[in-house]
């Protein structure tokens, strides 16, 4: 058989297996029994291994085909529960992300305005000396693309080594309001439900969310059910029409920021008509409202107080605020009042990138609790994440200025003490003073030292803040004009951030290193290195450990534990392995060493993780992963529910065992609607919303280098409504000027293109480095989560050359 025929034969086997699984349904046991795709025939030289996809937070597993040291094929992993062998357009091209022609291959130092190659030894020494000069002003900025061991090493380097908390991650920009919403409601972060809910719900509500483009594999899981004849009602609540809207049974538009009024309106009708689940509420819930001090936990209120507070949100008043017809508010409330239905809510950036993000997250949890749509498979309020390890690394490892690993908090003396014990560092090494959140960190970096700008060095890994931060002219650009500010960037390709860096470190990507991610449903995943990185590129993990060791060599005592050992000491056969020397980095599995240390943090707050070896065998496991009496490890699909969660006491049915009120109750919040910090006015009469597109992932540094994806969506654009275009005399495809109070850019107009914003609204994606919309966005943030609002600010549009 010729090679082409062989490939086609294998491809057909894969397609047949996937079609069988798809037709049987992805969630049931029948699907697991579907035939496996054919194994590659001996002699074709392709070796297959598992890895989670590098892109979004869904956490699909792929099988990666490697031949002669190169990734040559990718297929959906048929054994993965998340995607059952299917992938989206980005996922099936993920292997090509490694092979853009302009991969960074050598460390580069800016000399005389130009980036010049230097040795790794010199580069590591420069980073270490910047930290040694003034440790308190040295900060790390990473992302939800750090692997779990990378994030853990970064956290340990800063919190146990440098003795402060100047570490943040770009997840502050994408999901920190989800965190504070969970914390305010349940006392603990991350969804109680999981993707299995999508297989069981009768109603799916997408709140300001476009999963058809952003989480397509999850979305097709629901659409497939309808294709098989199952009835699933899809309701789309959003500020613009998207691909998701076009699949919806009911698509409801609301004015930006008014989702709070809608949520309160639904709650009001549930209570007013006695349609809430009084028994569930009486047993499992308390009520809260904001307090005068603005704390995340607010103040306790009674049910009667709550009833009185939400009473003003009548359907008619909600219609006035939001533009949603009163009859639709009544219909939504009636749906929630029907206990026989199972309702899943999904949300992502629409709720989180919001100056009231914590409030709207808490309100939707509250509707589910109030109506008893919680704890049964299919009844779940679930937030999705945008990055592959926003949960696993940022939220769980705690790569933020106020967190410690495993749900521990900088503010808790007990938690700090436990961290010091696990890290074996002296008492007091873990500071009680939180660091700066992302926006403050960058403001300080962009402010002269004498004026409060006490961050002198920022080391960026696995992210591209010069494109993704809001209001770039204010937060990033000033630092580049200040002589005492030093920007270090580890990345795989030239980006908007490497271009302005003082030092660039070439990094390994995805299967060029060992790794672990944690997806949106608490699933921790593992993979092994499959190919070498190009040139002199090295993993972010090695870079962190090499800098830590150089600091130790230079005499920084924080790099030793209280017994004098290096913080990242690795042992093999009783002997120290010099993992800071790249030639020895792979002599031990550093991921395993760090993960098994990190998991000691996981049990106290009941986020239990299994030993590393269990993840090698699995396509991910959802925490808490608890060992049973027979020695086997078991994941948890539905938290707080007795039928599934081992921490729920027998007979309790539902138990919110991490409640901050210490009474096993979740909190139903009242949060009033309030206007946004910036709204359209006479000078800037339009709303501007920003976001993502199907083909590109975040700032496009990887997907814009994959020819198939680049061709499919070659550049950014501004979507506008036909009426606005007509009024302004703008033709489809014409380049127009988009302006806000912070900046202006020129973009081609797309009239009723992929998405369709309502009149008075613009949408611009942020993937295109050449057209950086974040020069225009607003850095106003949520008071609790400190997450900025990328979804709404005031803008205007005009023809080029016009006034």
């Amino acid at each position, binding site marked *: 058989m010729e*090679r*082409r025929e062989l*490939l*086609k034969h294998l*491809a*057909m086997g*894969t*397609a*047949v297996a*996937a*079609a*069988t699984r*798809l*037709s*049987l349904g992805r969630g049931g046991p029948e699907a697991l029994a579907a035939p496996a795709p054919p194994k590659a025939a001996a002699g074709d030289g392709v070796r297959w291994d598992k890895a989670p996809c590098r892109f979004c937070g869904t956490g699909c597993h792929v099988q990666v*085909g490697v*031949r002669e040291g*190169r*990734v*040559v*094929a*990718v*297929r*959906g992993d048929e054994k993965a529960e998340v995607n059952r*062998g*299917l*992938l*989206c*357009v980005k996922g*099936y*091209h993920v*292997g*090509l992300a490694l*092979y*853009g*022609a302009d991969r960074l291959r050598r460390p580069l130092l800016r000399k005389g305005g130009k980036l010049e190659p230097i040795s790794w030894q010199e580069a590591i020494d420069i980073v270490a000396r910047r930290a040694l000069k003034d440790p308190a002003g040295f900060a790390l900025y990473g992302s939800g693309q750090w692997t779990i061991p990378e994030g853990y090493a970064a956290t340990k380097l800063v919190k146990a080594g440098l003795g402060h908390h100047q570490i943040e991650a770009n997840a502050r920009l994408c999901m920190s309001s989800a965190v504070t919403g969970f914390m305010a409601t349940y006392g603990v972060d991350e969804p109680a439900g999981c993707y299995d809910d999508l297989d069981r719900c009768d109603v799916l509500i997408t709140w300001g969310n476009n999963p058809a483009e952003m989480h397509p594999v999850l979305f*097709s899981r629901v*659409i*497939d059910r309808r*294709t*098989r*004849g199952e009835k699933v009602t899809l309701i789309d609540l959003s500020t613009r029409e998207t691909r998701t809207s076009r699949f919806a049974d009911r698509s409801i538009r609301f004015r930006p920021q008014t989702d709070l009024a809608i949520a309160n309106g639904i709650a009001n009708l549930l209570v007013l008509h006695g349609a809430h689940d009084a028994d569930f509420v009486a047993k499992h819930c308390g009520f809260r409202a904001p307090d005068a001090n603005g704390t995340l936990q607010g103040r306790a209120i009674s049910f009667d107080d709550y009833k009185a507070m939400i009473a003003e949100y009548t359907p008619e008043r909600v219609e006035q605020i939001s533009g949603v017809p009163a009859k639709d508010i009544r219909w939504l409330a009636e749906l929630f009042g029907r206990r026989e239905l199972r309702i899943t809510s999904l949300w992502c950036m629409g709720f989180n990138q919001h100056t009231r993000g914590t409030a709207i997250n808490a309100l939707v949890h509250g509707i589910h609790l109030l109506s008893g749509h919680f704890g049964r498979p299919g009844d779940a309020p679930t937030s999705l994440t945008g990055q592959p390890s926003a949960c696993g690394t940022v939220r769980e490892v705690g790569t933020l200025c106020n967190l410690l690993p495993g749900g521990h908090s900088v503010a808790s003396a007990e938690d700090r003490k436990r961290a010091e014990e696990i890290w074996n560092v002296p008492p007091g090494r873990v500071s009680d003073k939180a660091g700066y959140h992302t926006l403050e960190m960058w403001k300080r970096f962009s402010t002269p030292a004498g004026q409060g700008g006490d961050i002198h060095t920022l080391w960026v890994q696995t992210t591209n803040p010069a494109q993704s931060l809001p209001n770039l002219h204010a937060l990033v650009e000033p630092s580049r004009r200040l002589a005492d500010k030093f920007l270090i960037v580890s990345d795989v390709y030239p980006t908007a951030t490497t271009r302005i860096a003082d030092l660039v470190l070439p990094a390994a990507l995805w299967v060029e290193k060992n790794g672990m991610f944690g997806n949106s449903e608490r699933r921790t995943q593992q993979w092994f290195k499959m190919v070498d990185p190009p040139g002199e590129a090295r993993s972010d993990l090695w870079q962190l450990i090499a800098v830590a060791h150089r600091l130790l060599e230079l005499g920084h005592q924080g790099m030793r534990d209280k017994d004098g050992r290096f913080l990242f000491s690795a042992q093999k056969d009783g002997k120290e392995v010099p993992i800071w020397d790249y030639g020895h980095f792979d002599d031990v599995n550093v991921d395993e060493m760090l993960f098994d240390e990190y998991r000691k943090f996981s049990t106290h707050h009941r986020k239990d993780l299994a030993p590393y070896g269990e993840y090698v065998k699995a396509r991910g496991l959802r925490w808490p992963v608890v060992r049973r009496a027979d020695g086997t490890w078991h994941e948890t699909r539905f938290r707080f529910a007795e039928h599934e969660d081992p921490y729920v006491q027998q007979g309790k049915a539902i138990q919110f065992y991490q409640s901050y009120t210490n009474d096993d109750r979740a909190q139903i919040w009242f949060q009033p609607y309030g206007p946004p910090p910036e709204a359209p006015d006479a000078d800037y009469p339009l709303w501007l919303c920003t976001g993502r597109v199907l083909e590109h992932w975040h700032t496009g540094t990887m997907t814009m280098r994959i*020819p*198939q994806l680049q*061709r*499919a969506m070659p550049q950014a654009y501004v979507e506008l409504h036909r009426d606005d275009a007509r009024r302004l005399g703008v033709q489809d495809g014409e380049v127009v000027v988009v302006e806000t109070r912070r900046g202006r850019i020129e973009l081609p107009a797309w009239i009723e293109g992929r998405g369709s914003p309502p009149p008075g609204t613009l949408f611009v994606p942020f993937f295109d480095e050449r057209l950086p919309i974040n020069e225009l966005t607003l850095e106003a943030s949520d008071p609790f989560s400190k997450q900025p609002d990328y979804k709404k600010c005031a803008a205007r549009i005009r023809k080029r050359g016009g006034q």
Partner: protein
Amino acid sequence: VPIASVVLTLVHDREPLRDRVLAELTRDPRIELGPASGACLPAVLDTASAAEGEALVQSLVEKEGVVFVDVVAVDFSDQAEET
């Protein structure tokens, strides 16, 4: 060698339309169809270039009678070797 495995989900409630789209797919020499499983039809796309492959997938997405196109696997060995 842009060879891709896909699963086409066809309309299940309109038989004439389903038959018509099946006939169209069968006539395209670049598409090899496998045995249908319910509404799910496995297929292999064999095109001369990556660009032609993308265009073919897009045309399938837009074809009346095709509800969803799931791409399951792609072999891009030639492309990976070129870069």
